């Protein structure tokens, strides 16, 4: 299978890339790691006239600064999987990275590309929702930062304008007592999630300060079950509170029946994974 014909551009700088996007608008697509875009182009689901390859622009650092974690959009899943910083301080991300696709795809696929692709079965969107992350979008017109919940609009649809490039992903630094994880059910390595849940929990004097939850593959985009999160804020971290959160998360999800399982089954897994994820997050938060 071959993509449709396109003109290939490999800018040497971000400025040049932004100039190309300003010129070609929605006739252009940005190529990062290519692990979603190239398959989509081979299937002719996308046929951009211009491809702007930003793969060599760097933009792949992973570092804390000014009270937050900043990740360059071109950081590969593989880099995030290996990051000692993420293992030590961002357990939700560290748990999710090794579960994305397969090890070979992770060598090329990028966090920015994955978020811009906005597949409801994508993993990073749920992780970012749980962590209250945001994205930095650059264009010749300037720069703006959007919370991930506003960036992800619908299936394969984001708030990214045709002349913008996602340059950085930001995550607030975790509170002292916090923990989290990412639980993913997949039929085999490399398959999309049947269901997955990202869970983050922070404690303050033993009670729940904030709980963040993101759900994968159970809606038209990565879902944030806000009622489940709200019910946990300020509550005692009890089994009953977690059970209620699981129930509310399942209620908020709208999976469809497909080859990976029935809607009823998937909703049940959401319940189980949210409860299990919260229990694991609590254990980590108490140990922190």
């Amino acid at each position, binding site marked *: 299978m071959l993509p449709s014909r396109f*003109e290939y551009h490999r800018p040497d700088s971000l400025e040049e890339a932004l100039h190309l996007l300003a010129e070609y608008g929605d006739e252009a697509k940005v190529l990062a790691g290519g692990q979603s875009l190239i*398959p989509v182009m081979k299937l002719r689901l996308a046929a951009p006239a211009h491809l702007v390859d930003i793969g060599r622009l760097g933009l792949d650092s992973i570092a804390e600064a000014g009270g937050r974690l900043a990740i360059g959009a071109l950081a590969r899943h593989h880099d995030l999987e290996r990051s000692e910083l993420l293992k030590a301080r961002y357990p939700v991300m560290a748990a999710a990275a090794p579960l994305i696709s397969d090890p*070979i795809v992770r*060598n090329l696929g990028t966090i920015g590309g994955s978020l811009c692709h906005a597949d409801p079965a994508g993993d990073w969107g749920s992780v970012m929702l749980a962590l209250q992350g945001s994205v930095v979008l650059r264009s010749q017109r300037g720069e703006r930062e959007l919370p991930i919940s506003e960036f992800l609009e619908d299936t394969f649809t984001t708030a990214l304008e045709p002349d913008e490039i996602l340059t950085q992903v930001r995550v607030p630094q975790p509170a002292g007592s916090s923990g989290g994880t990412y639980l993913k059910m997949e039929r085999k390595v*490399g398959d999309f999630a049947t269901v997955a849940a990202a869970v983050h929990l922070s404690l303050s004097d033993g009670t729940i300060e904030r709980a963040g939850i993101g759900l994968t593959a159970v809606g038209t985009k990565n879902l944030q079950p806000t009622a489940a999160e709200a019910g946990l804020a300020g509550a005692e971290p009890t089994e009953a509170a977690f059970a209620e959160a699981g129930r509310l998360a399942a209620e908020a999800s709208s999976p469809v029946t497909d080859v990976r399982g029935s809607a009823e089954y998937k909703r049940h897994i959401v319940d189980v994974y949210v409860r299990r994820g919260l229990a694991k997050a609590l254990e980590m938060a108490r140990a922190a």
Partner: protein
Amino acid sequence: MEITVKVNGADRSADVEPRMLLAHLIREEFGLTGTHVGCDTTHCGACTVLLDGQPVKSCTVLGVQADGREVTTVEGLLQGGQLHAIQAAFKQEHGLQCGFCTPGMMLTGSALLAENPSPSDDEVRWAISGNICRCTGYMNIVKAIQAAGRDLAANAEAADESVAS
């Protein structure tokens, strides 16, 4: 578009359409048919090659993305006419039956050994989880990669000793 790729240590140039996939560039322009195209959908890993030393699925990379970079294919494993340790180990340990997945398996295996010379069963299985084999049940592939690791370590030790004496 005119591109130059260092393939198995030698610069190769070609004038290609930007939409040509790396797998086809390697097979059709460079004539290296050891790189197999299996599923053509990023699942099976038969088309795995090393791009700057890292395994990638060449059906999901554009040839133009490899411009100015280094590609290693299964043909590049051969060292001065001698089988690379991983090739010898796949032969010795019966790490293949039909052979279709073997180039990808060996390249992924060699990249693993480059950073982890003595991987456990789980580490090998994790590393090759993006390469699918439908014949062997993986047992002998895992054994072959581990055996190659031991052979490479033994060769390195022998080389050290000969330098010392």
